[in-house]
């Protein structure tokens, strides 16, 4: 009698082993990304001083005052040779110190990043979750009804939404809900008149302001889910064990659960990738809806030539993607017993 692998303990070991591997690879990845971003970013031409000066002048500051404001900023410019700067940067990074922001002098990049990150992370996650739920439910439906008109419609609409870039959706939604029927705010996070905290007014305001970004994120990824889920369900439907369950007289509800769980599994890898894509999309969506997240911050830091902030944002987005990948894989490991016991992946 053969029993290869005892589930319990070897499972934990497998998860730990995978995690260790991921972390090692993630670290290398981060090293590479930081080096690349460092090299690119430090080579960006453009004089932040002059830009700042002209901007201030244009805004009505007197030339002297503008010059004064700009001079002060010089203190925050990195100095030394490229190699020294790189070493400094890496040393700082090891201490989790991302350096000082230039646009908000005197403030650590990590502080700026963290305050921006939540405005990206929460809507992105909310949008993803929303679209994931709706997408997989409709995906199952589209798979079951794949011969009918409705299934067709769902699939085509899915492909279309999947294919359309986020900014097109954002612009369309914006045109509809802020221009044609102006019922939603076009920017910001919440009305300042509400005391932040757990009160209906504040939360309501938060939700209202987040609606357009979240809906855009959701719509943008919904198509992908519906397509992925549909094809996954179609695959699982063709799997023998579904027919076997049917032939054993299993209840529809149970069979449905079998289908759903097995079909969702491969979607976890896509989930990780899609998070990465959404972070990219955040740049457009936040720019269009003036939502103060990482994307907007990245644009600002680029126009302001805020090297440290730019590098930090870049790093943060990359790290988020790496973490999402790891999380998806671990989730996969936990859910799929085949991977868990160190055997073959599905």
């Amino acid at each position, binding site marked *: 009698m053969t029993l290869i692998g005892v589930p319990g303990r070897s499972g934990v070991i497998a998860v730990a082993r995978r995690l260790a591997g991921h972390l090692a690879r993630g670290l290398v990845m981060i090293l590479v990304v930081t080096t690349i971003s460092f090299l690119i970013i430090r080579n960006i*031409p*453009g*004089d*932040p001083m*002059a*830009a*700042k000066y*002209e*901007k201030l*002048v*244009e*805004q*009505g500051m*007197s*030339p*002297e*005052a503008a010059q*004064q*404001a700009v*001079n*002060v*900023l010089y*203190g925050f410019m990195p100095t030394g040779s490229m190699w020294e700067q790189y070493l400094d940067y890496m040393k700082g990074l090891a201490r989790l110190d991302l350096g000082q922001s230039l*646009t*908000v*002098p*005197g*403030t650590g990049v990590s*502080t*700026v990043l963290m*305050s*921006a990150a939540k*405005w990206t992370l929460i809507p992105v996650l909310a949008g993803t979750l929303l679209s994931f739920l709706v997408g997989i439910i409709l995906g199952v439906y589209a798979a079951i009804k794949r011969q009918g008109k409705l299934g067709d419609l769902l699939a085509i609409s899915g492909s279309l939404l999947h294919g359309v870039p986020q900014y097109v959706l954002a612009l369309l939604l914006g045109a509809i809900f*802020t221009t044609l029927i*102006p*019922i*939603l*705010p*076009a*920017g*910001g*996070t919440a*009305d*300042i*008149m*509400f*005391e*932040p905290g757990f009160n209906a*007014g*504040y939360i309501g*305001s938060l939700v*209202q302001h987040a609606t357009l970004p979240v809906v855009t994120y959701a719509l943008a990824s919904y198509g992908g889910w519906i397509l992925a889920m549909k094809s996954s369900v179609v695959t699982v439907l063709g799997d023998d064990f579904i027919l076997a369950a049917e032939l054993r007289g299993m209840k529809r509800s149970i069979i449905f659960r079998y289908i759903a769980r097995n079909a969702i599994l491969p979607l976890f890898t896509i989930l990780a990738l899609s998070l990465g894509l959404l972070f990219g999309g955040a740049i457009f969506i936040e720019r269009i809806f*003036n939502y*103060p997240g990482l994307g*907007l911050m990245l644009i*600002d830091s*680029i*126009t*302001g*030539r805020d090297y440290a902030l730019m590098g930090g944002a870049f790093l943060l987005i990359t790290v988020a993607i790496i973490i999402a990948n790891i999380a998806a894989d671990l989730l996969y490991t936990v859910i799929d017993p085949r991977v868990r016991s160190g055997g073959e992946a599905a």
Partner: protein
Amino acid sequence: SSTSTGGKSASGGGVYTTIDGLKPGLDVNGPINPWNPKGNMFQGYNAMKLGWKKNHLTDPNQFYPGIAASWDIAPDNSSITLHLQPNNKWSDGKPVTAEDVKLSIALAYTQGSTAFAITPGAAGAASEVEIVDDHTVKISQDMSNPSVTFVRGVMDSFVVPAHIWKDAVPADFWDKLKASRGEGAEAEKARAEITALSEKVLAFAPAKDVSAGPYTLERMNPGEALLVKNKNFYNAANVGPDQVKLLNYTGNEQIWNYLISGKLDNAPFTAVPADVMKRIGQTPGNAVVKGFSPVSVAMAFNQSKKPYDNVHVRRGLAYLVNRDEVTKIASPEGGTPALTTTGIHQKPAEAWLGGELSQLEPYKLDVAKAEKEFKEAGLKKTGGKWTLPDGKPWKFTINVPAPFSDWVSAAKAVTSQLNEAGVSAEVLTTADYPLYLEELSAGKYDVGFWLVALGPAPYNIYQRLYGASNGWTNLGGKIKHSAPGKDGNWMGSPETIDVEGVGKVNPGELTGKLNSAPEAEQKQIVSQLAKAANQDLPVIQLWDYVNTQFVNTNRFTGFPENESDLLRETSGVWIQLGMIKKK
């Protein structure tokens, strides 16, 4: 949509909603520090200066009271004596005293402003700060290189509470400052020490807002900041709104939306397309107040590049550009087509030049004159297209930074006009403004859009045309000229110009004189420089900006009128002066 009815709604005075044009992009991470560019102190509201500049056409030294209730200026500009508001208190109850002013000046030194510069020989720097009594401070100018704008530099200083900020500078600061004056290693070291303080000062972040202004900062989020009335403010009785809501903006279109929804009681100008302007006008209560703004936009030439070194080419181009049409397309509300090119905004130009203005060449659209000029420059027209003297094709490329939509539209309009006249023209945009400016000053562009006429002091105005970007630098009162392509000289005008009716002039030297010359002489110099700019055309002025403020009279009244000299100050200044009243 969300109206500000929730939360702690204001009683009586109401909530005044506006945008701080000086600080676009509120940042929740910014310290409560007026010197920090992202600091959460807002001029006129919770950040106070000694006085508030009037937007006078020609006189830079006129102010409204701020921390200083009044001031006496020595006739030769050698000193200014400030008399502080007698009953002014900080929001925490402590009185505002001369000590506060002195410490604030110390802080200003670390930031290296014009009046408080530590660079030896800097024009218009203060030499001494003296506490006369608890409420009187005297500041003297170093008369070795005086400037007419010394007083302006002093008055334009922030004042912060000494009891909060005292640790930001060392106790021996004033000794250090003294040591920094003069020559030698000792002085050098002292200067370095003071400069090194700048970062610390800039990053200084008080735990809470202690203000001598009409408001203190209550809370903020990435989109908005909420200010509440400071009961201790000297003029609190006359401060109308109880609360002020400052909205963040990252794109102009946000302001348009706020305006259309009637949310804003006041907003400074942003480029507004005509249709949006119409919609804004339709919102009940919305009104536009217009006044003078000392800025113009121009096409600037790089005279190191052919054929722009030839004045006839520049003139020919000036005749071909229809400035009225360009302005209509690009900035119908925010600008008025430049009457001509003088380097000065048309309003102060009238004040400085008077009747002489009409004698200058207006460069109205005139194809025939343009052809004449081009021919004079040796250009040839073949097959309806102008070519260079050597028969090579002439491609007129104009550069603009991509994010400035009005400039992009304007450049597009200019090239369309030129193309119609047979000059092959195209627009090139640069990804962003920093890059644009770097490339512009590196001499990479033939022609680019550029802000000029930055007043009101005539020295500032002409320094733009005949200053560092054109090769002239003012070092300790001495004017030097560098060759084109060197030391930031990207415009490349000749050092001397033969101006019709004036003779040979060195515009850089003339400009330098503007800094200290008495008013009568200033007028004469301005006239000469205006003629030079008009004939030699280092730039072609396109439109003069108009300071356009949006106000909404539904909730509040008492906004400045058209042409008010307060229009360049924030509505915080209007409020603290007691103008804004609840309806």
